[in-house]
């Protein structure tokens, strides 16, 4: 038996998506830019997908630019805005210390090329204060980028409030909604942002597809240059079958979010309280109320998260910490560090993220197996080390 509790890493493709992608692979062979009938068929399929993605976000289809995923959407938003507003003398960017690396490392790359970047800290519960963001905004700020939901701890950031401060400053507001899309309702107008990134595979769509929502009238510099696809904002032949799959996933996600995601929050809470009760020396990281309903991040005193993760995998339970380096080994969490947690807690916490297929039996199995694994890890006698 394998139990998958790593939906924030990726949500396995929904059966409807698999079906739609395979059908499109075979049945929609054309290039969406072509004039002929094959092209028109592909274009129509793309239009449908675009409409469905727009609907998930409360946006217009014409405002959606398809990308190769969340990372590309973030890059397009940040680099595109930074370069567009540079001409107006705006060379300052604002972001937070707990962003995904797609944002953090893009900011750092721009920093090395002469932009100034302010990394706003977060409080101990992993939430950035709108006032702190407001204070960071300067007359020469080009872009403010604050994630909607954090990938490691699930906390929701006060985007609406931040938007109030950004509005009127002349800066653009971007939010990385990769971890919130499909988990909480999103309405770009209510959020008050200018740019919003999503990734299909986080809500059951195919990997390698994503989108940037660009509010009508906002000008960005394209990052991928070439043909005139995506209204000239992102060159390259569209991956039609995968985007058809993204459309299907968006449609299902929109429906699910509208009906409150069933009992996922209840399952998450059952898992969380189950662990806190069954395993002594555990504590939840992040704001327990302001977070997406599928995620919990828990510190286990006296263990290495890496070992517990492997031990759980050997029992058939897939979870993660949320921060891995290029080799795949684990690093201390920059998010937990930014929250000011003591050093051991940045290395002893695990992220459990649930999805639509998670069952009560899954949760109970995990709660049942954890005490044994944790106490084994805690009891390890260090073998004698000779010859040092």
């Amino acid at each position, binding site marked *: 038996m394998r139990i998958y509790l790593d939906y924030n890493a990726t949500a396995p493709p929904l059966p409807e998506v698999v079906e739609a992608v395979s059908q499109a692979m075979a049945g929609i062979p054309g290039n969406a830019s072509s004039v002929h009938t094959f092209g028109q068929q592909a274009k129509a399929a793309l239009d449908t997908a675009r409409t469905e993605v727009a609907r998930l976000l409360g946006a217009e289809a014409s405002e959606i630019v398809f990308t190769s995923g969340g990372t590309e959407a973030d890059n397009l938003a940040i680099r595109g805005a930074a370069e567009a507003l540079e001409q107006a003398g705006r060379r300052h960017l604002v972001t937070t210390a707990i962003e995904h690396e797609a944002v953090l490392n893009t900011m*750092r*790359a721009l920093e*090395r090329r002469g932009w100034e970047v302010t990394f706003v800290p977060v409080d101990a519960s992993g939430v950035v204060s709108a006032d702190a963001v407001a204070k960071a905004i300067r007359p020469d700020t080009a872009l403010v980028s604050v994630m909607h939901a954090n990938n490691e701890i699930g906390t929701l950031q006060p985007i609406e409030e931040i938007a109030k401060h950004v509005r009127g400053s002349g800066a653009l507001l971007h939010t990385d909604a990769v971890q919130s899309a499909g988990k909480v309702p999103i309405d770009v107008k209510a959020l008050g942002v200018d740019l919003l990134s999503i990734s299909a595979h986080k809500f059951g769509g195919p990997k390698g597809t994503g989108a940037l929502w660009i509010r009508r009238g906002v000008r960005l510099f394209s990052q991928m240059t070439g043909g005139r696809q995506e209204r000239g904002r992102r060159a390259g032949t569209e991956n039609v079958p995968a985007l058809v799959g993204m459309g299907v996933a968006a449609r299902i996600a929109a429906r699910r979010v509208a009906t409150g995601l069933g009992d996922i929050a209840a399952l998450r809470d059952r898992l969380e309280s189950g662990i806190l009760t069954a395993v002594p020396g555990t504590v939840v990281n992040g704001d327990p109320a302001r977070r997406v309903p599928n995620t919990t991040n828990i510190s286990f005193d006296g263990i290495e998260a*890496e*070992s517990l993760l*492997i*031990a759980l*995998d*050997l029992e058939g339970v897939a979870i993660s910490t949320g921060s891995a*380096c*290029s*080799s*795949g*080994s*684990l*690093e201390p969490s920059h998010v937990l560090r930014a929250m000011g947690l003591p050093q051991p807690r940045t290395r002893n916490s695990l992220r459990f993220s649930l999805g639509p297929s998670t069952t009560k039996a899954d949760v109970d199995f995990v709660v049942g197996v954890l005490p044994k694994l944790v106490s*084994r*890890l805690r009891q*390890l006698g*260090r*073998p*004698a*080390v*000779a*010859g*040092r």
Partner: protein
Amino acid sequence: MRIVAAMSGGVDSSVAAAALVEAGHEVIGLSMQLYDQREGREAFGSCCSLDDLYDARRVAAALGIPHYIVNFEEQFEQTVVRNFVEEYASGRTPIPCVHCNATLKFAHLLERAEAFDAAAVATGHYARVVYDEEHGRYRLLRGVDPAKDQSYFLFSLSQEQLARAWFPVGHLTKPDVRAMAARLGLTVADKPDSHEICFVADGDAGGFVERRLGVDGRELEGEIVDTAGTVIGRHRGLHRYTVGQRKGLGLARPIPMYVLRLDPAERRLVVGPREELGRRELTASRVNWIAGSPPDGPRRVTARIRHRHPDAPATVEAGPGDHAQVVFDVPQLAVTPGQAVVFYDGEDVVGGGWID
């Protein structure tokens, strides 16, 4: 039995893992990430042994076993790299591989194995462990392939560690190992052996030590003197020299001069002719006796003072404390502080320690 296979991505540890799988064990592949292997932040192309970790992963996939990369950067830094720099800084010539084996593979990795309910850690070392029923203890033996024997690097293992150390290729020769890798279709079958110190990327250990000490090489320069104390040249920092070295001294002398001694207190390099290089006696410290306790009285052994050095007949006597006194039958060239001296009785490793 559930066994952890330490997989470096090289052919030896790959075949070790494969042999365990063939023997029907439940094998878990673990690879250690030892230093930051992220691609260069700005430009890329400058890499690195990420390739080795990926090789290990490919081999594990081919064997159908789970594989994980464990982050031992901190442990590696504290027990291996720091010691390496400190040893050089104090005028000694370290062998980091011994610490890596004893502390990382057979302490930290063994602890992980315990965490995963595995009975042992298997590595690709050319050495053998056998259980001696009569005395109720483990013996550490040389690998069968004399050209590849790595028992020298394992002298510091305790009985507890030996009880859970498996060396599946120890009874094979290198050609056997490569043949087995080829038979199994492992991509690493023809991969060259590694020789360099793994964390010194460009082979420039001197430069590495200087960067880690945060000093300019010129601050470490000093005098080269002969045994009479006459200054006959200048050196580029003691950490760039080792006992027995002849090349790179920059001396124009009628006879070849060798490094006899590093004198960190005076920051001097003492050189002399080859005849003065020989030493018959040495003291080893932090000595480990494989049997678990020191021998009673003097013991006849063959002793090896460097990895790629033939053994030489000697008499070793334990004491005082965890020291041992070694007297060779004939003087040995280049007895080097910081290197290990390992004592053998035929195939058996008797023990070993660090040359003072």
